[in-house]
């Protein structure tokens, strides 16, 4: 029995659940219709306990579950200048950003953190689909560059969880330029001989897929995640035929050689520990009961709950 799983995680999750959905005690699974009690759902990392449908999870909740004892330190992301194009559609771009910041409590669509998983030091970055569709603009590019730089500086692997509808149109060409910018970040890791593992989550499409999300040493996807370059509707309009069932889903991509693995969210952490430790030439992770984390090792790490 692992004390982290059995004690710390439920405790942290219960803190979360209270904070995130104070009034909605029940969530209906969009896949099977089962009513799930919020605590049960968050304990299961937003995976339906009946049908294993993977619902969205925020980067913060993911990091709480990923890092040992839910402890991680956020890596600061250099903030880009706001609204570089003075973009305005039906709304002003800064107003859209402000609304997303208010709704999510986050600065932008990517969170970067460092800490340990299974006592393995890593840097992690997670994209937030709930923040303007996870769209990739200057901030997301800066976040990935900051993550790669930190990983290189500390000699740690980078694990990146992707989730995006594509580029941030309101940043125009500068959002497109995040494709080469993030590619440079990936090259820094490769040249430093550090593992870069991509976990593709639902959905990962457009320019994000056509850059950092497809350049990993290892590609793992969550079950049934939609992953692709062009949207299914655009493809159907172009080729004038119906696409097969499961098209652009994780299992389909696995079959077509684009992914290494499709892994249930609840098994991800262990798998990431196993893979990163082998790639880093470390001995197998200690399984079974673990002593409490050594406070000396985590003293610089602020408890994420204090945010």
């Amino acid at each position, binding site marked *: 029995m692992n004390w982290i799983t059995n004690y710390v995680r439920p405790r942290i999750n219960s803190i979360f659940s209270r904070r995130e959905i104070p009034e909605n005690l029940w969530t209906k699974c969009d896949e099977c219709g089962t009513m799930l009690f919020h605590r049960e759902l968050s304990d299961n990392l937003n995976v339906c306990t009946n049908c294993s449908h993977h619902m969205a999870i925020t980067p913060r909740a993911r990091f709480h579950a990923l890092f040992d004892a839910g402890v991680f330190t956020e890596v600061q992301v250099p903030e880009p200048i706001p609204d570089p*194009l003075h973009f305005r559609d039906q709304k002003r771009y800064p107003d859209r950003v402000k609304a997303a910041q208010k709704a999510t409590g986050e600065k932008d669509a990517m969170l970067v953190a460092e800490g340990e998983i299974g006592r393995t030091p890593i840097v992690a970055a997670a994209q937030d689909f709930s923040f303007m569709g996870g769209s990739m603009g200057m901030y997301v590019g800066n976040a990935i560059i900051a993550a790669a730089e930190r990983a290189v500086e500390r000699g740690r692997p980078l694990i990146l969880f992707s989730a995006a509808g594509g580029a941030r149109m309101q940043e125009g060409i500068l959002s497109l330029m995040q494709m080469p910018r993030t590619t440079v970040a990936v090259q820094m890791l490769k040249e430093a001989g550090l593992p870069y593992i991509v976990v593709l989550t639902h959905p990962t499409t*457009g320019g994000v897929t056509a850059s950092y999300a497809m350049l990993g040493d290892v590609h793992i996807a969550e079950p049934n995640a939609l992953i692709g370059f062009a949207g299914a509707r655009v493809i159907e309009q172009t080729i004038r035929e119906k696409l097969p069932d499961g098209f652009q889903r994780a299992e389909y991509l696995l079959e077509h050689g684009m992914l290494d693995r499709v892994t249930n969210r609840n098994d991800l952490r262990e798998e990431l520990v196993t893979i990163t430790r082998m790639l880093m030439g470390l001995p197998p992770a200690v399984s079974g009961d673990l002593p409490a984390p050594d406070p000396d090792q985590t003293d610089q790490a602020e408890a994420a709950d204090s945010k």
Partner: protein
Amino acid sequence: MTHYLDFERPLAEIEGKAEELRAMARTNEEMDIEQEAAALDRKASDILKDLYKALTPWRKCQVARHPDRPHCKDYIEALFTEYTPLAGDRSFGDDHAVMGGLARFNDRPVVVIGHEKGNDTQSRIARNFGMARPEGYRKAIRLMDMADRFGLPVVSLVDTPGAYPGKGAEERGQSEAIARSTEKCLQISVPLVSVIIGEGGSGGAVAFATGDRLAMLEHSVYSVISPEGCASILWKDAEKMREAAEALRLTAQDLIKLGVADRVIPEPLGGAHRDSDAAITSVGSMIETLLTELSGLSGEDLVAQRRRKFLTMGARGLAA
């Protein structure tokens, strides 16, 4: 037959009248129309100047997509000698939307790659309207790799509405192919000069345009999404493409301000299609200038500068 764009209608009328008049005079020798025809010509030229002195971003998109605009093949034929096309991705097939091979540019051996849209129905279909599939990007990767190993500069000519949205393209890894091509652009230790000669459509363009220097023809565009696509998503109305084109800042002139493009190549009055030879010559002298600028740099310096260029890009927005 001249192909007129919708905003060129007043021009079409006057040029049409002058044409008609001259045709009538050819069948009826007693008619003296030269004075009248010359007046119409002057009027047409005034209209042309007026229309093109400040094209709106949407009109630039239209000019960039003009069917008579010189395309990749025209540039390669006119500017390069000993062009030797090299085909295939060594894995699945050869993509005719992407041209590429060895050639000499002003005598120096180079690798040239580019998107080709075709210029009539048959060639447009064969070229898939310049929309590459994974094989096209993988062919480009192979050629860039070869250029790197043999120390040849790479010239890329960008002209694509975007990567092909197809079933097979997705199954064979369109995303991965584009990502690897962009990665290859950033890795090679030889000069990479890119010119956007028409449309720089999203990721499909990035895959070739991530170079040391990016030049754009005066009325070419480079954008994250087509104005129509952007309008249908953000305005929920594809007809708002004029507004979207405006907001996206996709013109060569705006991309200079944003620090994304390095040079603008002037086009003949009325766009490159009105005088292809002049447009092609200007592109040629820009390529020569840029290759010369880069010729003294070591492979290491080239890669380091290229990376720095992209890492610092966009930091100052429109003020860059």
